[in-house]
């Protein structure tokens, strides 16, 4: 994307006014999407974004500037702006010598979506639309979306790091509306992986569409969810967002170091039930949160956050790790070249236990079975978090019975982790997610086995 000699020159300029660390992050991203709605292929969109963000660190201060101009002159202007913003005092020339590294994710992209004729992408949309509508007359609306992106990044910094990566992600989603005497209900299914068009060899699109339609129809008969505390069983693969919110964000070192996490100072302590092991793993092949390198040029890692209930470590980016005199854990990510990196999750999951998932439900006299969770949100300072249930049922006498309307559940991270009293042997990753933090969105994955929390508060309307 940019020649090594140019990068060395630009980093030299960035460091000239007393910078302690400087970095060039360049990105060239192409997006393509296609949307079918209301029975018609509405629109294909393609977009391209290309540019570089340059940061210069002096003491506690980071100066940052970005530009869409990748010429030497454009990069030098951005480097000067970043250096001025960091307000370094000292002078002197700093010579930067880069050492080219490699980024490997251990598998290849089979079919680059950019090489696939648009007609084939469009065909997937109409197929899914037909499959969803075939489920029943109650299906009153269907929207199908296809998306792919290819993101080439380059990271070069004053520590000599010079590495490039090329990432491809492909995504497909079906959303249905069912209409009945009780009003309208919705059902959605989505799949996404850090792979190319081979996504469609992995999944049966017709089945995916039928599942979304069936979920919407099932919910027409749903009764209001209860309100108040009761045991909650979370389905395999459907509920990783629980851990993303209950402890993931609270284990991000930037929040911890600012005193904004309820998990501050708790490394080495028992923070979860025995048997609970939570991992954040950027190396997980083909998963939505997979990265070969993070957006600071560090190789992706598998980081154990909680092991058998004991808090083992936080997640780190370059700045926080540098301050603590340790290595980054490969969790420095950013939405685009226009943003500064910060500590972010990748694929966050809970390891499987040994119980039979059927017996977990059978041993729950009364509660709620949440097959699929929606998004969530956490206040890391108090640990209180919410997450939505998009498909849920009552559990009565150890059996899954009636469907429930949508709603949020609320709990407190440290308390909920201690209340996990059953772990199934049926681990699965869930659908692709986008994690938002300080206005930046990045792709993340999550996964769980079937599990039970002995008490959570359900935000329904029924007494």
């Amino acid at each position, binding site marked *: 994307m940019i020649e090594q000699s140019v990068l060395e020159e630009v980093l030299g300029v960035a460091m000239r006014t007393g910078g302690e660390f400087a970095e060039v992050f360049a990105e060239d991203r192409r997006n393509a999407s296609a949307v079918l709605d209301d029975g018609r292929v509405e629109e294909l*969109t393609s977009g*391209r974004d290309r540019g570089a963000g340059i940061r210069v660190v002096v003491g506690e201060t980071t100066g940052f500037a970005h530009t869409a101009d990748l010429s030497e002159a454009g990069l030098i202007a951005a480097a000067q702006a970043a250096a001025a913003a960091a307000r370094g005092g000292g002078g002197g020339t700093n010579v930067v010598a880069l050492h080219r590294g490699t980024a490997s994710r251990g598998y290849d992209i089979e079919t680059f979506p950019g090489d696939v004729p648009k007609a084939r992408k469009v065909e997937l949309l109409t197929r899914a639309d037909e499959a969803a509508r075939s489920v029943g007359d109650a299906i009153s609306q269907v929207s199908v979306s296809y998306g792919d992106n290819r993101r080439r990044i380059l990271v070069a910094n004053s520590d000599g790091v010079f590495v490039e990566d090329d990432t491809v992600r492909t995504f497909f989603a079906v959303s249905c509306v069912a209409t009945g005497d009780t009003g*309208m209900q919705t059902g959605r299914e989505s799949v996404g992986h850090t792979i190319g068009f081979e996504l469609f060899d992995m999944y049966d699109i017709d089945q995916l569409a039928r599942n979304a339609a069936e979920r919407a129809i099932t919910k027409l008969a749903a009764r209001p969810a209860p*309100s108040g505390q009761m045991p909650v069983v979370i389905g395999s693969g459907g509920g990783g967002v629980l851990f993303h919110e209950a402890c993931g964000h609270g284990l991000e070192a930037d929040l911890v170091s600012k005193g904004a996490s309820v998990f501050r100072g708790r490394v080495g302590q028992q923070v979860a039930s025995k048997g609970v092991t939570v991992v954040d793993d950027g190396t997980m092949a083909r998963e939505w949160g997979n990265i070969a390198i993070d957006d600071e040029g560090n190789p992706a890692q598998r980081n154990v956050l909680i092991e058998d209930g004991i808090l083992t470590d936080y997640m780190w980016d370059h700045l926080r790790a540098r301050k603590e005199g340790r290595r980054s854990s490969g969790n420095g990510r950013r939405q685009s070249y226009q943003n500064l990196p910060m500590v972010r999750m990748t694929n966050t999951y809970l390891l499987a236990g040994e119980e039979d998932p059927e017996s977990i439900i059978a041993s729950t006299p009364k509660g709620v079975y949440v097959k699929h969770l*929606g998004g969530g949100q956490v206040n890391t300072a*108090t640990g209180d978090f919410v997450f939505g249930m998009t498909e849920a049922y009552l559990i009565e006498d150890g059996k899954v019975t009636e469907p429930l309307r949508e709603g*949020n559940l609320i709990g407190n991270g440290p308390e909920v982790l201690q209340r996990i009293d059953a772990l199934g042997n049926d681990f699965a990753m869930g659908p692709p997610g986008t994690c938002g933090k300080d206005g930046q969105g990045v792709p993340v994955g999550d996964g769980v086995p079937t599990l039970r929390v002995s008490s959570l508060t359900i935000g329904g*309307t029924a007494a």
Partner: protein
Amino acid sequence: MTFDPPDQESADLLELAQSVASNVRSGEQLEAFVARSSYTTVRAHGGEVESFTSAVSAGIGVRVVSDHRQGFAWAGTLEPDAIADALADARDNATFAEPDEWVGLAEPDGVAPVPFDAFDPSVATMEASRKIDLALELERMVRAGDPRITGVRVATFSDSSSRFAVATSTGIAGAGRGAWCSMSALALAEDGDETYTGGGSTVGFRPDDLDLAEAADDAVLRATRLFGAKPVPSQRVTIILEPRMAATIAGLLGSTLTGERVLKGRSPFGDRVGETIASPMLTLVDDPTDHRSYAADMFDGEGLACRRNQLVVDGVLQGFLYDSASGRRAGQPSTGSAVRGVSSTPSVGCQALAVAPGAGSFESLLADIDTGVYLQSMTGLHSGVNLVSGDISVGIEGLMVRNGQLAEPVREVTIASTLQRMLLDIVAIGDDIEWLPGGTGCPTIVIADLSLGGS
């Protein structure tokens, strides 16, 4: 209709948009939407500048309609080769869409834009050192606000000066500019083993509009009044929503009243025009020509004049918002409600919602509540709100209201209802309309009979 861009930079953007649109081929409609903005963000933490970002970004979106098929492409730069690529991609993309008799660009409709220009050049020319001083000052003020404040997660100063232009082969030409600055702080307060956060913010069309003391006081108050909060038992409650919370509910309602949702059968109010959908106290307009709104504008995303649109009057649903395509399909004129950025085609959206003020101050509304909850924050709006079914369930923090007074703090509870019920359950609207950073104007609203899920 003639239109004079407000300054040379806007004129240059309009000229660029027009030159792209002039590439139109026979049997085709062509639109270019061009935007450029410069911004600064200063983040202060621990008495130091944590980061200082300054940048300019620009981009273009190109829309082609040919044989009733629409295609779109965009680029995050205004380089000529990227614009040429976007035009070619948009044309190619159009060939894969299925024909729709209603698609098409906006055409001049004779509605004159209401002149508006809140652009203050002092935003763009402000010294970097003053921005830094302001961010550091806000952090100091928050820290000094209460002995229990142990830190500020971040205090920020942000400014943005932006311009856009849209031109089409159908004769549309519009351009606009805006400048804003804003500051916010997230305070951390500790007492014993409890930690709470509280946010405060201030926004203005010019630096002198910023009220640091108000932002700091708000952050401190919100961070310090929840100590000892715990869940209360599940019950039916009345909630009192201060303007910023009430604006969120108004925004949810507004989202269900867009023509696109209605036409595609995704609005719970789609067949209710002329009917009472809310308490007679509720009147809701979307009016970007109201210059008190921070989202006030002359043109919408398709280059049509913005206008005042009545959505709900005295509880009765008046109609929906349309852009030109959805309006054509509904047999209605566009309401000037196309919203967009460079990387997407226009969609129908609310721009400057306002709930008409009622009678009574926040205090007098509070005094009328026997038992209820005052909401300080809501979480999980994206996961707990379904705008098709109308189901609403969110996590909240706040203070109980007992005998007309704010009482003990509460957290880790949910409130739930449906949007349809909440509108009918409005029991009071205050006179304290506040214009919020997002552009919505809203007073305090009191809603009865929600389910609180707690211990």
